[in-house]
């Protein structure tokens, strides 16, 4: 210990504070701290925030100019895109939105997308550049609690004012009044297929022979061959001046291995890449062990709402620009184009449609996905949270393969081993573990320059022979070969040190693959990673004094990260040596788990003593969102407890055990018709044969909150005009009573149920019709046939209620 720290910790048992934590319970405090900082749906929020803050800018910047083909001096250019506050325009007036208001009035919780547009305007025959600020190009549905949401950073009281539950995690959208959550999609991509041997030449021989047979010897001949009809007829839509070999070249440049950039027709990098890939392929042919495992979690990427939305937005934005350009070519007036853009509403409608139907289409790539959104399950709080951490596979569920369904060892700590549905989606639908983080894209450029600074030799400078020298290692960043480095461990350690010091992003992974003689650096989005305690020679960096600071509230989880006590590891880097407990650490240990139970997901971590259960019981329990807790005594009651049926005690039910309230929504719309007429609500009859059915109606002709509603009761006394079509020549007049027919709505609940009108909400819908919503509440007490369960997947129906 240095003198500095000595003087700081005067009066405290220094030895105790500096000693590593023996007891694993001590570190437990980190988990609530972690959840306080991150919450359970942070992955969705991060992803959406990244899209709103960064990605959308990139998209607009990449497609920022529309120039007239006729007059190239006339153009329109986008600058500065930003998402405004959630609001809607109602009769020309901008009205701010809150999520609760959207839920009640069936609106979409969306914010305008503002851009600043520079364009050439013609003033008295003179061309000059004008700027228009805050042009709305569309409205983006906003994820609740994201940085664009009105709930962002609000405290409990402010949330209550907005009608929001402080415990609600957010991370979903409100589209046409319904809550829609986007799932996570697991994307399979094997990024790494990179390797050599004299045996390879034998494998390459047939290809070379074929080339010789086709009389392809030079590069030019090769390109011509590629362009010949039998090879290229698919890509015939390329237009423009045709130069021999240019089309093939452009395909090779832009489409083949698009991730490898080509600068000024320098194909060298691409060549090396192809070569390395071919090597790896041949190696795989010769030796099956070198094949990459496609079920390995490290080879998978998760697609979150931000990415899904950004792809969709990019497509829509490009389509809008393409359409604008067509208009532009017809009439070269930038002002008119601006007008077209303002009027364009496909971005708004398509974004809304995708979220509400879950059908995601990107036409340009012919990509189509179904079920990207789900209605948020609100049966229980835990169920809602569990729903938000669900991961769905991209491919068909019907595949009868066991590989992807099996529990992968690489899932440890990242994906919950228990939480998966039974039946057809078993093992394919997964759930995130408690501490899993899903990364977002990170800028590669600083990492690249850092790598070269740390002594990576650029591929451009190396000869082909040097590429496979056994004494040097290939450095690969996000599937892109940067170059070679002589000293593997020194490089990796230096990179890690920089990461721990916060010089590069905390989620950048540095993975050394000794077998392939590669160092893989990953900074791309969609990787799963989790925090672990760093250990030096098997000694945990977290000491008792750190935990004390945490308990005292001096520091939080993030300061642990900043201080380099904890770091995030992704699946690949997880191949370091991780000890479960301090006491099990050896000098080789590099990391120590924070808490063993964090391998479980939200639902599974609520099971008491899950390690004492038979494994499928935990899986069954995860499928059930639990409610009220109860203390029980177990007894048999032959005949009424067969097949897991349970016997309940009547007195407990009398005293309120298991009571629940079911809410149901009924809507009535006062429709406006073409004939300038509309539905009308009329005063209830207080006398006569129907008075009985109308007794819950208030004097305002609508059922009053607090009234007990029975079957066949009328909750709105509405009348519709008999003629709703507009007859030419008639003028809108007040219709006589005879021109109306009753179209009242009656309650169709079950007999004997005590239902009460809980709330009545009036608002106007998107067509400006008056819409009345009734929340009808029904209090139920447990009865025979109701399902109950313990917290261990032991469910059963109530067989009898005993006095």
């Amino acid at each position, binding site marked *: 210990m240095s003198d500095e720290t000595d003087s700081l910790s005067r009066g405290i048992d220094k030895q105790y504070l500096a000693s590593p934590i023996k007891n694993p319970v001590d570190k437990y405090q980190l988990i609530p701290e972690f959840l306080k900082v991150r919450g359970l749906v942070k992955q969705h929020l991060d992803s959406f925030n990244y899209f709103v803050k960064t990605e959308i800018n990139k998209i607009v910047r990449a497609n920022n100019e529309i120039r007239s083909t006729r007059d190239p001096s006339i153009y329109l250019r986008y600058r500065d895109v930003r998402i405004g506050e959630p609001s809607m325009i109602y009769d020309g007036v901008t009205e701010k939105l809150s999520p609760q208001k959207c839920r009640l009035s069936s609106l979409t919780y969306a914010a305008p997308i503002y851009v600043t547009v520079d364009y050439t305007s013609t003033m008295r025959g003179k061309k000059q550049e004008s700027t228009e600020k805050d042009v709305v190009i569309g409205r983006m549905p906003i994820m609740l609690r994201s940085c664009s949401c009105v709930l962002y950073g609000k405290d409990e009281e402010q949330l209550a004012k907005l009608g929001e539950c402080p415990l609600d995690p957010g991370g979903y959208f409100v589209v046409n009044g319904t809550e829609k959550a986007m799932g996570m999609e697991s994307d399979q991509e094997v990024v790494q297929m990179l390797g050599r041997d004299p045996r390879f030449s034998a494998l390459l021989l047939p290809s070379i022979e074929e080339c010789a047979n086709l009389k392809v010897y030079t590069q030019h001949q090769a390109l011509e061959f590629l362009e010949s009809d039998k090879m290229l007829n698919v890509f015939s839509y390329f237009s423009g001046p045709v130069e021999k070999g240019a089309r093939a070249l452009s395909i090779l440049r832009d489409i083949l291995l698009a991730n490898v950039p080509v600068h000024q027709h320098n194909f060298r990098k691409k060549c090396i890449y192809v070569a390395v890939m071919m090597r790896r392929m041949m190696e795989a042919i010769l030796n099956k062990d070198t094949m990459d495992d496609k079920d390995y979690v490290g080879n998978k990427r998760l697609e979150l709402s931000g990415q899904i939305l950004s792809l969709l937005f990019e497509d829509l934005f490009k389509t809008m620009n393409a359409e604008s350009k067509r208009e532009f070519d017809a009439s070269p007036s930038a002002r008119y184009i601006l007008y077209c853009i303002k009027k364009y509403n496909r971005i708004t409608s398509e974004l809304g449609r995708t979220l509400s139907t879950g059908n995601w289409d990107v036409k340009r790539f012919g990509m189509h996905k179904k079920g990207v959104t789900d209605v948020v399950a609100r049966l229980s709080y835990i169920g809602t949270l569990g729903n938000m951490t669900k991961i769905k596979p991209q491919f068909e569920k019907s595949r009868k393969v066991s590989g992807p369904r099996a529990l992968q060892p690489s899932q440890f700590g990242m994906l919950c081993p228990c939480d998966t549905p039974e039946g057809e989606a078993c093992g394919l639908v997964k759930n995130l573990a408690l501490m899993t983080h899903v990364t977002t894209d990170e800028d590669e450029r600083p990492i690249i320059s850092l790598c070269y600074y740390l002594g990576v030799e650029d591929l451009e400078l190396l000869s082909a022979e040097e590429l496979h020298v056994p004494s040097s290692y290939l450095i690969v960043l996000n599937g892109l070969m940067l170059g070679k480095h002589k000293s593997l461990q020194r490089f990796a350690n230096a990179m890690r040190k920089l990461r721990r010091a916060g010089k590069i992003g905390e989620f950048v992974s540095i993975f050394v693959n000794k077998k392939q003689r590669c160092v893989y650096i990953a900074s791309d989005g969609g990787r799963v990673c989790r925090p672990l305690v760093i250990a030096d020679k098997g000694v945990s960096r977290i000491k008792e004094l750190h935990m004390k600071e945490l308990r005292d509230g001096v520091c939080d989880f993030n300061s642990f990260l900043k201080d380099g006590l904890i770091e995030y590891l992704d699946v690949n880097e997880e191949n370091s040596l991780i000890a479960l407990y301090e006491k099990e650490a050896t000098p080789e240990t590099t990391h120590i788990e924070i808490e063993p139970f964090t391998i479980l997901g939200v639902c599974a971590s609520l099971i008491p003593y899950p390690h004492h259960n038979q494994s499928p019981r935990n899986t069954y329990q995860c499928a059930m969102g639990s409610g009220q807790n109860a203390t029980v005594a177990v007894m048999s009651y032959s005949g009424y407890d067969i097949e897991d049926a349970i016997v309940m005690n009547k*007195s*407990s039910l009398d*005293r*309120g055990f298991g009571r629940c*309230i079911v809410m149901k929504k009924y809507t009535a719309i006062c429709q406006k018709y073409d004939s300038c007429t509309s539905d009308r609500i009329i005063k209830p009859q207080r006398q006569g044969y129907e008075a009985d059915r109308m007794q819950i109606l208030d004097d305002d002709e609508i059922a009053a909150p*607090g009234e007990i509603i029975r079957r066949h009761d009328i909750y709105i006394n509405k009348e519709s005009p008999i003629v709703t079509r507009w007859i030419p020549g008639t003028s809108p007049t007040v219709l006589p009573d005879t021109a109306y027919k009753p179209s009242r709505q009656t309650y169709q609940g079950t007999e004997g149920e*005590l239902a*009460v009108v*809980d709330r009545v909400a009036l608002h106007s819908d998107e067509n400006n019709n008056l819409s009345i919503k009734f929340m009808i509440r029904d*209090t139920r007490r447990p009865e025979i046939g109701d399902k109950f369960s313990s917290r261990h997947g032991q469910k059963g129906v109530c067989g009898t209620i005993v006095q």
Partner: protein
Amino acid sequence: MGRASDSDSDNMDSGESITKVSVWDLPDVPQGKLLSHLELKRTRVFCASLAPTNTENVNYSGAYASMGVDNSVRFEQFRNNFKVEIMRLEEDELEFDMIGIDPSLANAFRRILIAELPTMAIEKVLIANNTSIIQDEVLAHRLGLIPIKVDPRLFEYMSENDVPNEKNTIVFKLHARCKKGSERLRVLSNELKWLPNGSELILATESPASHSSTKPKTYTSFSSSQDTLPEFSNNPIAPKDADIIIAKLGPGQEIELEAHAVKGIGKTHAKWSPVATAWYRMLPEVVLLRDIEDDEAETLAKKCPVKVFDIEDIGKGKKRATVARPRACTLCRECIREEGWDKNVAVRRVNDHFIFTIESTGALPPEVLFTEAVKILEEKCERVITELS
């Protein structure tokens, strides 16, 4: 016993000669009395280390007829043996020992206490206004569970077609409001105010202006005020406990309601149960089968979590374990868990000795509840007798 000694001498006389003697005539078989192990079996439940054994009762009068023992209980015999010892009597709680009675009767009393003794409880709630967050049904349910301190014997049951009147209904009023800008308000059970003249709410079917001279009809039809009754004149009816939270009101919220309490029994709904619980347990009996001394005594005393055993000095520096507080025994069997200890200690329960506890909710004192329960069993018998004849 006389016969036994006879056969004894007979046996001695016959000497070596082979004469057939019935097993019942053997000298150590007592006549007219059960063998000691059978008597033990008849009167005790054994708590063996694995499970309680001998839990069943021998009821049949002729169970031991072959031994010449009559197992029937004559009333005289019952009267002489039956004892009641009060252990504790408080305002709401009573603990007493009932000795010399069959479990079937003890259980009948317990069941009646819980399910068949009437009390008054709120059954109907007329909500005039409720702007609190607590739903009407939930509020009504909570009100129903509030114990009311009133003797149910002064009231009648209200059957389906009865009109609520002063003989079958007690009316309470509750009006609580939390002023705007003030702190959150707790509505406690003491805000339930008794209305001795019955409901103040006018029937919905009544048109307000029709009979201005006569009193408008309300939800109850009281012919006289309840507080004119001598029982209530100086003793207004109110909830037993004044500090039960009914609801919490936020600023600007209000509850206005009328609650009607009627007579009922716990069988219909637990809110009418006059007891929080009524239970009994059999008297534990802990017997040391041999002297437990010195270190062994210490271990035994330590084994018991409820300290049933004491250690006494028997002089010469020797110590011995004694059973000091057998009533405290919870029959956890910790003392006989270890291998071989069941040879040292026997844990049993006395079959016909019940430690009966009654916790009243407050409508009636617990000792009254018990006598009422016994009366109800008598009424039941009477009903069967009338049905038989």
